[in-house]
């Protein structure tokens, strides 16, 4: 088992990284030294300087400004996806678990169908049908992941359904919706938060991966996957243009994973022992 001090340091680090990136995303217009979309061909591939701390890309756009603005798109989209999956997954999962019977059967068969596809391939296909762009990518990734959550939430709801306190609430006249909201959600909220934290990194990789393939956020919108895709042909001459956005994704995903692991350890010491 890891020493508590080490674990605390890692959690601190993860939180610090996430705070930095959230700040970058929130205060992008204040922090960015330049307009992220301003093309200036005279500064094409400009080396780092005081004016352009990380240099410029192949169109002379300021690399640092683009990285900062991209935090908005990458992190924002991942958060929107995670939130919508949690809401939709809870709605479907709790309904299925709580109502049981035919509703349960129909919802779970629907989940089964979605779980049959390889996730990334289905997301690609959906973007192909819906068209590229931020909204459609968010929709595609959310649609390909909700079934996992619906299933987990259903099984969690099932374990709680017959608990005495839930029955007591039902007997005393609490409606199904109210019971689910007041008596099912709170006990599983912590587990859901951990799941979502561990998955946010995964969602980000999906969005950026699709954007990298040209099937996601469209250029010139600054997004880390788009930036890697823009710089891919210059890997031999200007690898740093790939390394900066790549490192940003890597660090962000790592911070979410660290935090998720730490949250799981804190909630479930038995599991942490086995790890």
């Amino acid at each position, binding site marked *: 088992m890891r020493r508590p001090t080490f674990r605390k340091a890692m959690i601190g680090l993860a939180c610090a990284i996430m705070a930095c990136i959230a700040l970058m995303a929130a205060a992008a217009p204040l922090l960015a030294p330049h307009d992220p979309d301003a093309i200036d061909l005279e500064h094409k591939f400009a080396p780092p300087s005081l004016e352009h701390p990380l240099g410029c890309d192949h169109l002379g756009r300021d690399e640092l400004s683009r990285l900062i603005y991209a935090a908005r798109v990458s992190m924002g989209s991942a958060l929107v996806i995670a939130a919508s999956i949690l809401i939709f997954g809870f709605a479907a999962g709790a309904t299925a678990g709580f109502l049981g019977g035919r509703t349960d059967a129909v919802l779970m068969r629907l989940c*089964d169908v979605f779980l049959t596809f390889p*996730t990334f391939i289905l997301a690609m296909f959906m973007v192909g*049908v819906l068209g590229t762009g931020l909204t459609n990518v968010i929709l595609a990734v959310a649609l390909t992941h909700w079934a996992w959550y619906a299933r987990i939430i259903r099984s969690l709801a099932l374990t709680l359904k017959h608990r005495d306190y839930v029955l007591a609430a039902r007997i005393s006249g609490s409606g199904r919706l109210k019971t689910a909201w007041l008596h099912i959600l709170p006990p599983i909220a912590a587990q859901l938060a951990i799941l979502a934290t561990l998955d946010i990194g995964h969602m980000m990789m999906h969005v950026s991966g699709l954007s990298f393939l040209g099937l996601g956020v469209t250029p010139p919108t600054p997004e880390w996957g788009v930036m890697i895709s823009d710089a891919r042909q210059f890997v031999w001459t200007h690898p740093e243009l790939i390394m900066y956005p*790549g490192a940003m994704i*890597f660090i962000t995903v*790592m911070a979410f994973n660290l935090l998720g692991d730490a949250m799981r350890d804190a909630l479930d010491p038995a599991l942490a022992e086995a790890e």
Partner: protein
Amino acid sequence: MPLYVLKRLALLVPMLLAVSVTVFLILRLGQGDPAMSYLRLSNIPPTDEALATARQELGLDRPLPVQYADWLGKAVRLDFGRSYVTKNPVLDEILYYLPNTLILAGFSLFLTLAVSLPLGAISAVEKDKLPDQLVRGLSFFGVSIPNFFLGFVLVWIFSVKLRWLPSMGMGGLDHMILPAVTMSLMSLCINARLIRANMLENIHARFALYARARGLSERAVTGRHVLVNSLIPVITAVGMHVGELFGGAVVAESIFSWPGVGRYAVSAIYNRDYPVMQCFILIMTAIFVTMNLAVDILYAWIDPRIRLQGESK
């Protein structure tokens, strides 16, 4: 056992039917208009008249259930239509590229298993010592790095700087290493973690205690009983890895210019070449489902508890 296999095989039919309906509905309910793409890719100006003709030609003017039945009838006879771009039968084109992808995915799967097994085992045996910490560090790194970035890091290190390995195209084994590592690193790390966790759990299991009570050395207990029992859940994980590998293959093929079906599909999606998109997702899903079925059967064969449970119902 044969009964179990038959039951599982019979389940395959409704599953694939559901998949085909879903794909069909997503395509038809989406915003895109296949007739429009068809005209655009055939270089015909999309006048109202041309659109109407194209719709009739493609059968888009008929009710949805009729369209689906017609399409399914052809699909069962392996006729998936013709590409809007090349006008060749879609299945032929996909089957032309598919083997390249399967070779790459197979090699990646082999790499995943061959590397994660020793890593996970060492990590569990040397728990909390240096090797364990190194493996855990590596797995943490591996699950956080996105494959589309990893690919370029590998190109930069091994092709640009060291000039050891080629960065694009298909050829000998050396062409396969970088794309395969790109595809497998994440599942490799997840697998190593899984094996480690299973082994740590099984070290205290009753069968291990019994083996120790019989006087077996700790080495024999770990190697023969703990390790082997820890591999059973890995079989299930392999089924899931295949899905991840297909997604990874699309990315790796794009980075390393590997002439596989993923790269072909991405260009089809750019072009809105609907028959190709449809056939691609169906074939990949069919392979994925079949692999998972094989995994389930293998699992039941190894672990009798599973199949007996099924039969008692």
